[in-house]
């Protein structure tokens, strides 16, 4: 729940305050230039920081007939009010060292006065001040909720400043700039809120005047100003203002208003008559003013201007994001009860919806009844035949907000008919727990009686169109409905085809019809065992995919001849010397791991094909355990010699074979169950499991692994899947 609470409050706060916030930001940017424009004036004494009152006051007293007040402003300009020798009143900036007049303070410009009033009170006096104060407080809450959202997005405090995945311009810069201007905005919001609270007297900032015992005032010994200890110890930089004695009467005194206290000083003896420290609330008010206005530092003022400008950008980009997300809202043409295709989406910020929409639109255009909804809306779909779940992962491998109830709902609403499902995970390798929730959804569906896997769980890294088209091709082939990566290209995708020459083809094994075919590419190709070969038996959009094993620089496919198989029949008719046109699809997620300490290969039937290539190329001699299942002993024959050689060559560590129709009538999953302790040890020591073969086998193996992981390692299988320790390529 927490995620959506932060997101909704972030949005709700922004919506309720954006008009005033925009106004405050624009005026804020303008006002930041007031201190900057003041600071460039040449009224600050060079060695201001070193001067004491004992050095300054006698000089000023000598130069001016009468001084009633000296004040030091935020720019450290020293200003005196008094009169000159002719009795004419003066208000001037002076050099505190020489007493020379430096200039006359200008009145606050009408423009800045106007903007300040707008910024503070919208020209609405008390009501305006209240709304502006409220806006500052809302900004504070927006900042806090925004910070929580970044923490969730980045998965933890430590990763706060790590890379951000780029979805689109508005989202990316909303987060990037949000992180950068977080601190200044937080300070602006906090100080603004504080100043408003002080203004409405919710924080008491009353000053206490020094209490003076007039009976105790001494008029002796008379000292010179320069000899007053208190003046010698007080630097001009600590001074806010000094009120000079109104007359020469000993009962009139100096009032020193310093940055943290107020003092009354006897004008004859220099005794401290009274000293009062300001309450913390007053000091905080001064600090808030300094921080909120930037009046003490031009650099800070500019930072504030930039931060205020960023707020304007956040308003724009925030609404752009919201708009986009709302745009993903689904309008279904067909009802859930009528549809043959059900597309379920789990998405936190809406980007996954665009992929779902692409699939949905293509199905509709081909006259299919398709229904698109959130994973949380899962229910009984009476006419469903296909189910596609597309989901992102949020936080630390958690479900996105609109998919949180999915697990409960699946248990609650079993489908009445078998439904062929496919899970598509969206994520980024920039985060740990890559596509973890998608693996969980897959695991969950795999455990349902009604659920029939159509294609393997696929993952899409950083919205890669290539990853998506890999899934689209696999799915299209199984469902016999064409889905392409981009909805604009419904025709045959034009990929560069490679010419391959057949160099060898074995006879089909007696009973199960398996045969091996070897192909030699014309050109040197960048191909790795585990990649896929797409062939076009009829030279049309119909594509068939085969897993490639690379042996001796040739591509070896292991194919089972189906009675009316389009692809297998086509390949089976080939003879040595024939040339075919085909395409190699990079299938990076199913390459032999480069760093694994140990690899366990699990296959059934022709799923052994990529493993044969991997074993033959296992020159580093990575410990390699092959578990494979066949129908009969005869099916193994065509591989037997190669496997024996590899074993004696130490490219293959161990071989375990199960025959489903002979001997003990075992499946490969039975071998895994037998060696469960070993398999768990492999996972626990960062070893990698590779699974290739039929989806039915995959389902059995995953179910088995799921329960053993939970009982023996106390972790969910999806943890290992999301960390790339379980690689799968099934069909």
């Amino acid at each position, binding site marked *: 729940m927490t995620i959506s609470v932060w997101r909704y409050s972030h949005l709700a706060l922004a919506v309720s305050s954006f008009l005033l916030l925009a106004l405050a930001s624009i005026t804020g940017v303008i006002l930041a230039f007031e201190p900057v424009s003041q600071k460039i004036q040449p009224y600050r004494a060079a060695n201001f920081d070193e001067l004491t009152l004992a050095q300054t006051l006698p000089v000023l007293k000598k130069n001016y007939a*009468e001084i*009633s*007040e000296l004040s030091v402003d935020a720019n450290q300009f020293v200003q005196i*009010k008094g*009169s000159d020798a*002719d*009795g004419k*009143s003066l*208000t001037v900036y002076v050099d505190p060292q020489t007493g020379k007049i430096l200039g006359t303070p200008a*009145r606050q410009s009408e423009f800045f*006065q106007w903007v300040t*009033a707008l910024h503070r009170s919208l020209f609405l*006096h*008390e009501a305006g001040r209240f709304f502006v104060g409220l806006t500052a407080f809302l900004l504070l809450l927006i900042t806090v909720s925004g910070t929580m959202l970044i923490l969730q997005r980045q998965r933890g405090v430590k990763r706060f400043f790590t890379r951000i995945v780029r979805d689109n311009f508005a989202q990316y810069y909303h987060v990037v700039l949000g992180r950068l201007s977080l601190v200044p905005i937080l300070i602006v919001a906090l100080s603004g809120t504080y100043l408003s609270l002080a*203004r409405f*007297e919710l924080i*008491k*900032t*009353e*000053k*206490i*005047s020094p209490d003076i015992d007039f009976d105790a005032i001494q008029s002796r010994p008379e000292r010179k100003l320069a000899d007053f200890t208190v003046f010698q110890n007080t630097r001009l930089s600590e001074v806010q203002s000094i*009120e000079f004695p*109104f*007359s020469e009467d000993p009962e009139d005194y100096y*009032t020193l208003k310093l940055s943290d206290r107020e003092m009354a000083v006897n004008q004859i003896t220099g005794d401290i008559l009274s000293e009062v420290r300001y309450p913390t609330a007053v000091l905080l008010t001064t600090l808030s003013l300094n921080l909120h206005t930037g009046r003490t530092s031009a650099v800070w003022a500019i930072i504030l201007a930039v931060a205020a400008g960023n707020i304007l950008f956040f308003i724009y980009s925030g609404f752009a994001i919201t708009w986009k997300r709302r745009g993903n809202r689904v309008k279904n043409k067909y009802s859930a009860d009528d549809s043959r295709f059900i597309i379920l989406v789990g998405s936190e910020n809406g980007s996954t919806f665009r992929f779902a929409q692409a699939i949905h639109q293509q199905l509709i255009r081909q006259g299919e009844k398709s229904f698109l909804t959130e994973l949380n809306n899962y229910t009984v779909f009476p006419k469903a035949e296909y189910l596609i779940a597309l989901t992102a992962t949020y936080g630390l491998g958690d479900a996105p907000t609109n998919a949180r109830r999915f697990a409960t709902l699946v248990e609650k609403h079993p489908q009445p008919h078998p439904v062929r499902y496919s899970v598509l995970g969206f994520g980024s390798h920039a985060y740990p727990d890559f596509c973890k929730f998608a693996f969980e959804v897959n695991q969950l569906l795999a455990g349902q009686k009604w659920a029939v896997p159509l294609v393997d769980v696929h993952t899409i890294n950083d919205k890669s169109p290539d990853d998506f088209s890999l899934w689209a091709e696999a799915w299209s082939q199984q469902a016999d409905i064409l889905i392409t990566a981009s909805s604009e290209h419904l025709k045959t995708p034009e990929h560069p085809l490679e010419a391959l020459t057949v160099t060898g083809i074995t006879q089909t094994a007696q009973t199960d019809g398996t045969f091996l075919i070897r192909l030699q590419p014309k050109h040197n190709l960048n191909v790795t065992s585990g990649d896929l070969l797409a062939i076009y038996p009829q030279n049309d959009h119909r594509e068939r995919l085969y897993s490639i094993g690379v042996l001796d620089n040739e591509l070896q496919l292991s194919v089972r001849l189906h009675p009316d198989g389009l692809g297998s029949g086509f390949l089976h008719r080939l003879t040595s010397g024939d040339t075919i046109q085909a395409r190699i699809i990079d299938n990076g997620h199913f390459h032999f791991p480069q760093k694994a300490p140990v690899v366990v290969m699990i296959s059934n039937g022709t799923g052994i094909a990529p493993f044969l290539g991997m074993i033959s190329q296992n020159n580093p001699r990575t410990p390699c355990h092959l578990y494979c299942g066949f129908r009969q002993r005869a099916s193994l024959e065509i591989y037997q010699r190669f496997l024996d050689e590899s074993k004696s060559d130490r490219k293959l560590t161990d071989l375990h074979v199960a025959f489903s129709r002979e001997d003990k009538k075992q499946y490969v999953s039975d071998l895994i169950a037998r060696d469960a302790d070993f398999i768990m040890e492999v996972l626990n020591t960062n070893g990698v499991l590779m699974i290739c073969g039929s989806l039915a086998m995959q389902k059995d193996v995953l179910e088995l692994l799921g329960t053993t992981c939970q009982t023996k390692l106390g972790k969910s299988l999806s943890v290992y899947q999301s960390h790339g320790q379980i690689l799968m390529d099934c069909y």
Partner: protein
Amino acid sequence: MKSFWNKISVVVMALSLAITTSSFAQQPGTTSYKCMIQMTNYMGEGAYIVISLINGKGAYEKTLYVLGSDKKWYPDVKEWHKAMAKKTPNISAITGASVAGGDRSVTVLEIDNSKLNKDYKIRFESAVEDKQYHVKDLEIPLTTEALSAKNEGTGYIRYVRFSPN
């Protein structure tokens, strides 16, 4: 050499005489008073204070000083604004900054000698944004006696003191 010094001293005397006479000539029959306003420790914005000369009938005669420079707030000083705001030419010459709680302000008032010890009063009228308005925060008779005493205010002003400038 001696004659040179004589000449110099004559010139200096003449000059100083000229300065003195000219400064008197500028203000015939008026006296400057330093006026110190000490504020109470009220909380809120800076107070706008108008110092006016009031005649025997209780009517505004002249604006002596305005503390507070933003004309936008002048209507808050109600009675004065009604009577005098538009009748005071060159108001900026007798305008200073508003005064915040706990602060003090020293201004110089020019007072017509002929009005002294007659039936005139000096009124201190004060207003603070969104707070109470005091038409007579302090009103004192324009007498030699009152100008030498410490006069307590009733609103934002704690007290007012005068001294000849």
